[in-house]
């Protein structure tokens, strides 16, 4: 094994393998507990004031907390594929004073970037530890799967992990139960719909991009691969090493290419799924009928708007203020405004359809608008600090755009 990296040697662009120093953290956290160790070190040394993590209730239930308590951070360790919250939603002016750090899957990270553009958080003070993500699951689907496929009760479960394309449940009697995700998805179970066509699996837009892809066999389950994406990320790691919370070594070529390979396979699968789900509906009348039918059961509860991490309007929002059910003959103004506002910015995180009580596959609807518009403007929300094209003051600001634009010039 190569030598331990000294904290001061860590710089942007480094690709490393790391783990927590503490035995306890290693056993609790996924893949050697590096992320937990980095967060704990940041709090312990006062590098950040607070950390935003999920507080675990059970394997299927957790809620976000801001905490300055290292113990709470340690307890949050481990992956939670069945609690698909988007933590970015909780970063707002009321909660974002001082420096904070949070673990974030790619869609959380994209939401942080978009929220920073809308001035609800300060990017300098927000440290984002990105986590690779192959997909998450709706807790209700997980219960269904446990009952129908695994034949297990939720109370028997001790933990879960996604390993080599299989969803594995660990039960309290020490056994492992693995089923290929493809088989689950063939039956309409498995990952959330939006995860199946998600286009970002490695959070290269975060400060650190961490995950277990590219960890060599002898370290499997005991180490985390981490790529240092920004200077802020390097600071976080240096701090963890100096404080004696984490140990790091350089990753080897084999690991680096293995990680790229997993990423490519995952992205390829998403791309295929995306083409299937978003097959064009050529006839305009049929398209309208599709949207109208999908929205037929909407009860206008507003949950989809309240949960959306790129919507930062709060209570006073245009989509709700002017919409009246009395005028919603064929479609409501609420949905039309949301379709427009999210056409350049929807990151496809799937939060809206997770919470919709009418079980409308909403992310598909938003993405129907987002896919062509984001392609036209060559804009990928949450992946750079470029101003969203809808906020441009002049058409020239969007000149990086395909197509002819307005016909009247």
């Amino acid at each position: 094994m190569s030598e331990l990296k000294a904290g001061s040697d860590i710089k942007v662009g480094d690709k490393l393998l790391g783990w927590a120093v503490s035995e306890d953290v290693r056993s609790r956290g996924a893949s050697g507990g590096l992320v937990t160790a980095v967060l704990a070190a940041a709090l312990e040394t006062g590098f950040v004031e607070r950390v935003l993590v999920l507080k675990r209730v059970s394997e299927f239930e957790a809620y976000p907390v801001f905490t300055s308590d290292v113990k709470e951070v340690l307890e949050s360790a481990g992956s939670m594929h069945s609690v698909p919250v988007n933590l970015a939603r909780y970063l707002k002016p009321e909660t974002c004073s001082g420096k904070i750090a949070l673990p974030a899957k790619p869609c959380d990270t994209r939401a942080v970037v978009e929220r920073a553009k809308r001035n609800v958080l300060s990017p300098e003070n927000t440290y984002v530890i990105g986590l690779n993500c192959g997909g998450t699951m709706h807790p209700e689907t997980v219960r269904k799967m446990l009952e129908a496929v695994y034949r297990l009760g939720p109370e028997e479960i001790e933990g879960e992990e996604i390993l080599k394309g299989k969803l594995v449940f660990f039960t309290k009697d020490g056994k492992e139960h693995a089923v290929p995700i493809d088989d689950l998805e063939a039956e309409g179970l498995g990952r959330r719909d939006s995860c199946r066509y998600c286009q970002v699996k490695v959070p290269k837009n975060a400060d650190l991009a961490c995950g277990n892809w590219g960890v060599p066999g002898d370290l499997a389950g005991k180490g985390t691969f981490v790529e240092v994406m920004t200077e802020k990320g390097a600071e976080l790691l240096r701090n963890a090493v100096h404080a004696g919370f984490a140990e790091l070594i350089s990753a080897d070529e084999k690991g680096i290419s293995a990680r790229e390979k997993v990423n490519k396979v995952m992205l390829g699968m998403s791309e295929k799924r995306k083409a299937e789900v978003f097959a064009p509906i050529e006839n305009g009348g049929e398209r309208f009928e599709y949207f109208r039918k999908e929205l037929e059961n909407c009860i206008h509860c507003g949950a989809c708007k309240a949960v959306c991490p790129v919507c930062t309007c709060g209570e006073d929002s245009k989509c709700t203020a002017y919409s009246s059910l009395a005028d919603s003959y064929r479609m409501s103004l609420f949905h039309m405004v949301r379709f427009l506002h999210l056409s350049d910015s929807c990151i496809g995180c799937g939060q809206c359809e997770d919470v919709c009580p009418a079980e409308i596959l909403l992310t598909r609807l938003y993405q129907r608008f987002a896919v062509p518009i984001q392609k036209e403007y060559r804009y990928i929300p949450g992946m750079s600090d470029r101003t969203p094209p809808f906020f441009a003051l002049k058409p020239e600001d969007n000149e990086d755009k395909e197509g002819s634009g307005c016909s009247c010039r």
Partner: protein
Amino acid sequence: MKPEKNEIPEAWEPKIVMFCCNWCSYAGADGAGIGRFQQPASMRIIRVMCSSRVDPVHVFSAFLEGADAVLITGCHLGDCHYINGNEKTLVKFNFMRSMLKELGLEEERLQLNWISASEGEKFSEVVRAVTEQVRQLGPSILKPEGVA
């Protein structure tokens, strides 16, 4: 399922909501009237101080309440009374048009044109041309039932 093609009744006249900016196109409308240029009575004109005052909410509301098309007009680029309001209009217009197209509306149902205060004749030409285009398309799919 393919929705039936809307029957276009013989005497059907489209209803078009037209936004005119105070400084150019509304004056253009006056010019058209003074010059006695003929034009169909299809427009419902709403005067706004600047074309960029037209919010997507206004456009969508017009459609939801029965407009067959929406026509936004303003000063020529470079002539905006508020320096560059019409450039912002253009950005928003492109977005609204893509979005409405994706929703299933024909592109011609949302239009943008620049008409200056001296272009009375152009004003009536634009009104005639847009009305004719919309007449060919028939009533909009967003039109509530029972609204003529």
